[in-house]
């Protein structure tokens, strides 16, 4: 899962939603793992904070586990980009929690997948671009070969 580029951030379930919003703002991320001990119990997204927090006028001190999404769709650390795409498609989610032996190690987003796919596409089209920029000329067949 070398295409997980960003570090992950986690918080305890009792953390306040205000704290989590501030952590997202400072970190420039849209989701945070909620971890109890070593166990991933949910993820909270900026969308969760709005739809389950602000929309219901929850107290700024409300616990984050009250608005988190759970259970979390997970993917093993050895999975490839096609496995990830399959999970995103079948579950209709934008984020997958990456786990190694059941332990959370990071978050994989649709953005990560798009970057990875764009890179693959660039690798595939490079020979075509080279051919367009510098057309390959085959050597002419010697005259004596013509009948």
């Amino acid at each position, binding site marked *: 899962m*070398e295409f*997980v*580029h*960003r*570090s*992950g*951030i*986690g*918080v*305890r379930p009792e953390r306040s939603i205000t*704290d989590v919003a*501030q*952590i997202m703002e*400072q*970190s*420039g991320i849209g989701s*945070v*793992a909620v*971890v109890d001990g*070593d166990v991933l119990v949910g993820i909270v997204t900026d969308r969760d904070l709005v739809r389950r927090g602000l929309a219901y006028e929850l107290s700024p001190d409300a616990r984050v586990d009250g608005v988190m999404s759970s259970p979390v769709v997970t993917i093993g650390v050895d999975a490839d980009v096609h496995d990830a795409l399959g999970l995103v498609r079948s579950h209709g989610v934008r984020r997958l929690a990456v786990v190694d032996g059941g332990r*959370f*190690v*990071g978050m994989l987003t649709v953005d990560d997948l798009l970057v990875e796919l764009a890179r693959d596409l660039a690798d595939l089209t490079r020979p075509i671009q080279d051919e367009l920029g510098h057309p390959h000329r085959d050597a002419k067949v010697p005259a004596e070969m013509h009948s």
Partner: protein
Amino acid sequence: MQAKIGDRIVVRGHRIGEPDRDCEVLEVHGADGGPPYVVRWEDDGHETLFFPGCDAAVAPYESSRG
């Protein structure tokens, strides 16, 4: 990544103009200095669990205190 309590970890900015962030390791939860870590962020003082990706590195002690 391997780190110990008191180490400083630097996380590279992802967009042009976005500054690097750094944090201090307060607790090491993995085996042999491995992640996750409980860290305190230098810019806002928040404490979080941190799961380093390839955008993070342990800063050398000298430069981290410079």
